[in-house]
């Protein structure tokens, strides 16, 4: 736990109690805004200044756009936001190209403001929604709060103003039921983050997925690479989905219902389905504001496929402007194109592959190709990624394993355990809904989750998406 986490633990219960004392919407909004600013300032007072500046400018741009919906005004807003994002997020990537120019030392000192990718995309969706004629009329306070809302400002989910505005204007105070539901989600999130932590660090010291990626050598065998690909895929899932649970739960404590960000992505049977279940707030953003408008330009199949690849390339670059992330995006774009072509082929030839066996095969192909893609996402260099892929396709490298057995065991148990839990969950969900957990048992579960998430992982815990 770091000082920010401690601040959150201290400030949020106070804010919760204060908000319950206010009945006027505006007062509650101001308390929420001040809380959000206080918490965000703990990451850097300069970051807060930038957020306020961006929020103010975008609110103004939104008003201008609302007054006259012109393409020029929209582009002004888009370019201004992309310039801001580009300066803080991508300028450093250009350092190797700048060499010893006068600009280089200045750029080297640029620090990435936490959450800038998330709140800039929120701004863009606001401007685009106004341009599309959506009835959005946030007050200045509401817009500031939309941008700085403390549960989402650091790592999403990327919200749309249309879904948040009504809740911001709600006159109802958070209830005890909200608190219980929120705590439930936070506990699930803490468990998941702890599982991700175990995968990252291993059962024994320095025998986890992260360390293996750090020390990767070309001697790693095919099974090793598969183990790392699946291990990292699930580590990232547990970490980010766990974080999203915590955020959604924390917002629920205050009576806000945020959209889901993950929906059991690893049970997807096609790449397209995967992207409706993984980091949903970003993938839907890309679909609605990038893919669909681009696809409208031209109805040809070739253009549609190109649009898919371009959209996924931008999806990858949203994370970081590196060649590895660009390749990761293109790889997923190609997977989506291949899936689309396969569907067309099936339709044309009248093939029907339904039933459990084809579904199982489809699921297996999907999960393996998705996990293979994580190699690009997590590798330290292009050479490492290609060395890993070489090991995967080299048949002779499947004769032995070099990673610790404990890591294989861990990955196997967590992957199978997770998939088994999902299956079991489906079986008992109906019965659980009618079963109310006694308060005492609930407290015991909270206690366990807090221990696992806060105390056990206290030394090393970090949320993967904070760096984006």
């Amino acid at each position: 736990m770091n000082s920010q986490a401690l601040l959150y633990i201290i400030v949020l219960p106070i804010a919760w109690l204060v908000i319950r004392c206010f009945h006027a919407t505006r007062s509650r909004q101001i308390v929420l805004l001040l809380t959000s600013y206080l918490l965000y300032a703990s990451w850097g007072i300069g970051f807060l200044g930038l957020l306020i500046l961006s929020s103010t400018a975008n609110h103004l741009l939104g008003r201008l756009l609302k007054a006259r919906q012109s393409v020029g005004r929209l582009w002004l807003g888009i370019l201004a936001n992309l310039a801001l994002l580009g300066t803080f997020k991508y300028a450093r990537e250009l350092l190797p190209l700048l060499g010893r120019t006068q600009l280089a030392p200045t750029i080297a000192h640029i620090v990435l403001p936490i959450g800038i990718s998330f709140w800039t995309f929120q701004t863009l969706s606001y401007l685009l929604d106004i341009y599309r004629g959506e009835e959005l009329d946030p007050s200045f306070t509401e817009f500031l709060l939309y941008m700085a809302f403390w549960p989402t400002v650091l790592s999403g989910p990327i919200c749309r103003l249309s879904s948040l505005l009504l809740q911001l204007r709600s006159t109802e105070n958070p209830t005890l039921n909200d608190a219980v539901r929120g705590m439930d989600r936070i506990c699930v999130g803490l468990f998941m983050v702890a599982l991700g932590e175990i995968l990252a660090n291993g059962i024994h010291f320095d025998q986890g997925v992260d360390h293996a990626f750090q020390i990767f050598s070309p001697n790693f065998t095919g099974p090793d690479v598969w183990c790392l690909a699946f291990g990292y895929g699930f580590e990232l899932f547990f970490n980010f989905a766990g974080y999203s649970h915590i955020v959604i739960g924390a917002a629920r404590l205050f009576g806000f219902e945020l959209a889901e960000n993950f929906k059991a992505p690893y049970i997807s049977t096609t790449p397209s389905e995967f992207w409706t279940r993984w980091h949903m707030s970003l993938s839907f953003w890309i679909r609605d504001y990038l893919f669909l408008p681009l696809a409208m330009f031209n109805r040809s199949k070739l253009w549609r496929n190109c649009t898919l690849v371009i959209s996924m390339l931008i999806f990858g670059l949203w994370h970081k402007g590196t060649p590895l992330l660009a390749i990761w995006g293109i790889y997923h774009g190609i997977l989506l194109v291949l899936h689309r072509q396969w569907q067309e082929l099936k339709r044309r030839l009248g093939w029907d592959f339904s039933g459990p066996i084809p579904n199982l095969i489809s699921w297996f192909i999907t999960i393996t190709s998705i996990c293979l893609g994580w190699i690009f996402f997590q590798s330290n260099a292009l050479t490492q990624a290609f060395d890993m892929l070489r090991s995967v396709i080299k048949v002779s490298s499947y004769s032995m394993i070099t990673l610790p057995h404990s890591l294989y065991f861990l990955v196997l148990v967590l992957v199978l355990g997770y998939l088994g839990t999902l299956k079991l969950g489906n079986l008992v969900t109906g019965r659980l809904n009618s079963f109310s957990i006694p308060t005492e048992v609930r407290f015991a579960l909270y206690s366990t989750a807090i221990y696992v998430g806060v105390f056990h992982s206290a030394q090393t815990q970090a949320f993967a998406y904070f760096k984006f």
Partner: protein
Amino acid sequence: MKHIVHILRGILCALIFVLVLELCARTDDVLSYGAPFWGPYNNEILLKTDNLGKWGKPGARYEKWQLNSLGYRGPELQPGTVRIVCFGASETFGLYEAPDEEYPRQLERELNKLAGKPEFQVVNAAFPGETLPTAILRVPEVVSQIHPSYALIYPSPATYIEITPRSVSPARAPRPESLDDRILGLRISERVGNLLKSALPKAVQTRLRQFQIERDTTHVRVMQTLAEANVERFREDLGALVKSLRAHGVEPVLVTHATIFGSALTPEDRDLLIEWRKFYPILEEGGFIDMERRMNQAIRETAACEKLYLIDAANEIPPGPNNFADMVHFTTSGAEIMAADLAVGLKPVLFPQTYGKNLAPSAGRSPASIGCRSSARLGVSNR
């Protein structure tokens, strides 16, 4: 009545919450470290107290710290090896390094790599809070158990800030455990305390330490620099330890004391000095740097006077947070540099045929010039 039921239920829930946390902490200890589920589990279980003071409990284990059957940190003694015993305090015992990465372990690996076979064993006879007077008293026992050929002495100067009468073995009497430390023996209380401490912003932590120092020094005279008598006492004790080891047929090698602080103090260094002073409030922050310099000079002079090999770790180990986890304790990479440094320094002692014994006096410093009570030729490592 309904209110009373609600209150009782609330208390029950709070109790369940704490009990489950405690249950988790104990289960975690069992799974992570093989700790006992019942009974106390803290760093005190590593130590026993006898008539000479605190000493390692044979076979004890606490978290990453494992003692062997003789009560020393590290593996069991291997027959047929040349043994080097390390005397020191927590810096030598190892606090922050990964398991088996404290400098004595790394030194053993370095030496055996040089030898090309498992010829040497480095025994870690240090304990947190160990002082030179205690070490002197322990020499006969250590020698009879380990039969070392060489002894590395890495003394901790700070233990001489609060000088105790010579008859008392530990420099600082053990503080009785209080309810503040471990509330009702709950393991979770210690974890909560540590978590809160680590989560507090640096500036707040420093301010709290300053408050504590101010409180502790209300009725105490604070020293700007360490009194010369303390340095003299350190010099005497070091000399006595050297003599005692030699009397038992063990050749001592002295090592100067390294710290995180470089020649120019950074704002972080000033915070660290306040952190250090919290343990020894009677010495002002600036006095610590001066103390290190003078104590290290005393070590160098003792080495010169007693014709001992000296390894000047204070000058060899780069300062800064990469090598030090706090003021004086090594990180794993710091311990690695220390071990490499010691191995180089020990080469002429352990491999005289290969590296030769260079006993040339150091330039411009003769035993007489540095005031040895019984001067003879100088011994400096050939590095």
